[in-house]
């Protein structure tokens, strides 16, 4: 028994070293390459559709009947919020697991491929009815609007695909832990564990909604549906999903960026605490999407304001951590004075610049989030363009710009190629164009929203009300922002495929920062994922058991399906 353990250790120690010396294995690289390729094709399509919407809302483009605004918007949301983010997250973390755990296990590779094709088939099933105008229901698909059943089967397959990927990640992590008893999981694998735990937790809710409520109803097996329960289950998933993409970006902030700027990473213990806190508290945040819904009592809503705001705390810890790392690194490079360290940061390096702007954007984005999860303030901006502006800051800047920055080393790493100075320069230009486009768009959306302009509404002046309410100039600016963004999208997609197939061959490092030399050892408690999952389930139960029971027991007669488009 003992010898087998030490032998295992020996073998895995060897593969660890081989992995670091030779880079990622071809088979593992192919998995990540496939996921990233799909992610960036989705970005191209989603960006193109985004431009169509922007121009429509600016009043410059009337969309034809065979490709109407609501079809375009549904596809835009699914391509960018579901496909781009999920495929990038999986491609990135699977490369990270392969790198930090000494390669993927053969069976995990197999699972990753099954998951990949399950998701692709699911995605095709989702897209067909959207193109046929049989599923213009947005990515929130609130019943009693009913899309073609194929749309829901597609969604179910996407969820099943996610579960395969999560299972694969857990198997690889468990195997590593078995061979490294008493050791802390490498930090990037620790983030990956948190992300996949949350993915399973979040998709469980939407799976119940789709499998047990919507599919039987859409097939006509049952006549009516409980609209409120469906909506609540959706938001337990929907809000967590975007927070998972955010946690993925945060992993790069803590683990990768310090290395890129030539520093060490923030305190290991606190980093792990932030991950655990985000995992435990996240799923309960979804309820603040229902602050102005009927049928939920004020005390329950108030409890959920607290549960939503609580998620802000680990983010504020992160804000401190990032600037501490920047300052420490700058001072070590000889910076003087209070702010001299700013000059020592590598502003010309796209691998730093893009994620840095992403972090900076999270300051207004997070503040806006706190605003709109409180009762009365949400009532002012609920379902207005403000919300659209908010998630273009959080997703379109904080998350996606981090993903862009990561792509400039991750794609060369998995392709055994290098980032050339020329490509880096192109990346910097791309970052600047994207930033300007997103700032113009997000600012205009927030402002128009404060004046009452509704979201998810194709071009309309409401009989010239839009002019007197002051929306028009801001909606025109949204069109300008969308145009700049598409330019940046094209450059980014070109860069990714160039780095994947055409850039000069060579070895690129997977940048993972070390801890400070004199840092105290992290308590082993952080590694008890079983405990954290139980705590997460208790918090979810506190948040959801009461209101969901109430919605089921005191339900109104259900709603029949409607196709209103």
């Amino acid at each position, binding site marked *: 028994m003992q010898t087998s353990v030490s032998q295992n250790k020996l073998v895995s120690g060897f593969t660890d070293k081989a992995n670091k010396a030779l880079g990622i294995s071809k088979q593992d690289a192919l998995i990540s390459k496939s996921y990233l390729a799909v992610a960036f094709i989705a970005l191209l399509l989603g960006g193109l559709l985004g431009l169509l919407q922007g121009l429509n809302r600016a009043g410059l483009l009337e969309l034809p009947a065979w490709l109407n605004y609501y079809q375009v918007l549904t596809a835009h949301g699914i391509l960018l919020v579901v496909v781009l983010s999920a495929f990038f997250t999986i491609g990135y973390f699977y490369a990270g697991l392969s790198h930090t755990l000494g390669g993927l296990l053969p069976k995990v590779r197999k699972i990753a491929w099954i998951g990949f094709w399950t998701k692709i088939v699911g995605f095709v099933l989702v897209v067909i009815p959207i193109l046929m105008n049989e599923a213009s229901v947005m990515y929130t698909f609130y019943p009693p609007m009913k899309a073609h059943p194929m749309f829901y089967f597609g969604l179910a397959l996407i969820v099943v695909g996610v579960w395969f990927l999560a299972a694969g990640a857990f198997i690889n992590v468990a195997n590593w832990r078995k061979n490294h008893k008493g050791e802390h999981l490498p930090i990037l694998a620790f983030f990956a564990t948190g992300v996949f735990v949350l993915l399973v937790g979040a998709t469980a809710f939407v799976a119940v909604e789709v499998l047990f409520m919507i599919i039987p109803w859409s097939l006509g097996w049952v006549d009516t549906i409980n609209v409120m329960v469906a909506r609540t289950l959706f938001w337990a998933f929907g809000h967590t999903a975007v927070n998972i993409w955010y946690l993925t970006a945060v992993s790069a902030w803590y683990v990768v960026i310090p290395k890129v700027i030539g520093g060490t990473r923030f305190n290991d213990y606190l980093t792990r605490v932030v991950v655990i806190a985000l995992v435990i508290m996240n799923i309960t945040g979804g309820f603040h999407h229902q602050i*102005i819904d009927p049928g939920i009592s004020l005390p329950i809503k108030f409890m959920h304001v607290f549960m939503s705001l609580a998620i802000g705390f680990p983010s504020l810890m992160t804000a401190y951590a990032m600037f501490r790392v920047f300052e420490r690194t700058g001072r070590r490079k000889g910076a003087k004075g209070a702010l001299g360290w700013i000059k020592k940061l590598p502003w010309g390096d796209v691998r730093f610049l893009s994620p840095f702007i992403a972090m900076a954007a999270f300051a207004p984005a997070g503040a806006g989030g706190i605003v709109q999860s409180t*009762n009365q303030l949400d009532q002012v901006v609920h379902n207005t363009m403000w919300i659209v502006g908010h998630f273009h800051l959080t997703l379109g800047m904080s998350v996606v710009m981090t993903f862009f920055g990561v792509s400039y080393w991750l794609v060369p790493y998995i392709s055994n190629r290098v980032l050339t100075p020329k490509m880096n320069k192109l990346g910097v230009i791309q970052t600047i164009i994207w930033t300007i486009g997103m700032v113009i768009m997000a600012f205009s959306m927030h402002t128009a929203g404060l004046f009452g302009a509704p979201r998810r509404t*194709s071009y309309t002046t*409401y009989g010239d009300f839009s002019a007197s309410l002051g929306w028009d100039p801001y909606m025109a600016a949204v069109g300008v922002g969308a145009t700049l963004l598409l330019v940046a999208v094209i450059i980014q997609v070109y860069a990714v495929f160039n780095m994947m197939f055409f850039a000069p061959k060579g070895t690129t490092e997977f940048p993972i920062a070390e801890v400070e030399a004199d840092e105290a050892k992290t308590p082993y408690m952080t590694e008890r994922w079983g405990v954290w999952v139980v705590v997460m389930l208790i918090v979810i139960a506190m948040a959801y058991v009461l209101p969901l029971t109430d919605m089921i027991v005191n339900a*109104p007669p259900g709603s029949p399906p409607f196709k*209103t*488009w």
Partner: protein
Amino acid sequence: MHLDEKIWLTLSFGMIMIFMFITGYQTFALEMGPPSNNELIDPQKVDETAPFDEPGIKQVGENEYEVVMTLQVFSFNPMDIEVPAGSTVHFILTSKDVVHGFEIAGTNVNAMVMPGHIQKITQKFDEPGKYLVLCNEYCGAGHQVMSTTITVK
């Protein structure tokens, strides 16, 4: 943990608690909570169920009005309401089909209107003028035309 981090985290925690306190005070002491009415209705029998069998506006007190309104694709019933300046208006709302939103642009009136649920929200109209009422939850192909007005004289 460094001293400056402790200060930062204390401030962060304090800020969240202040937000909580103000939200709670406004919700429970000042009764400014978000619309959360808890009454049910059969969404397939709205037209036969009181008070929605007679949608419309009626005076219920001095400067006080009650508007019973149904929302359906892609209209409000009643449309184009008129009230005198200084009136307080209680809106009683439900949907006859899908999920709708009830927003009066330029005011804080904003509520989700779901089939099966009766939603209530109140607003005092001091400034004379024409207000835009719109649906702010995507409800179908004609969502962008779903609007009406309230004229305050």
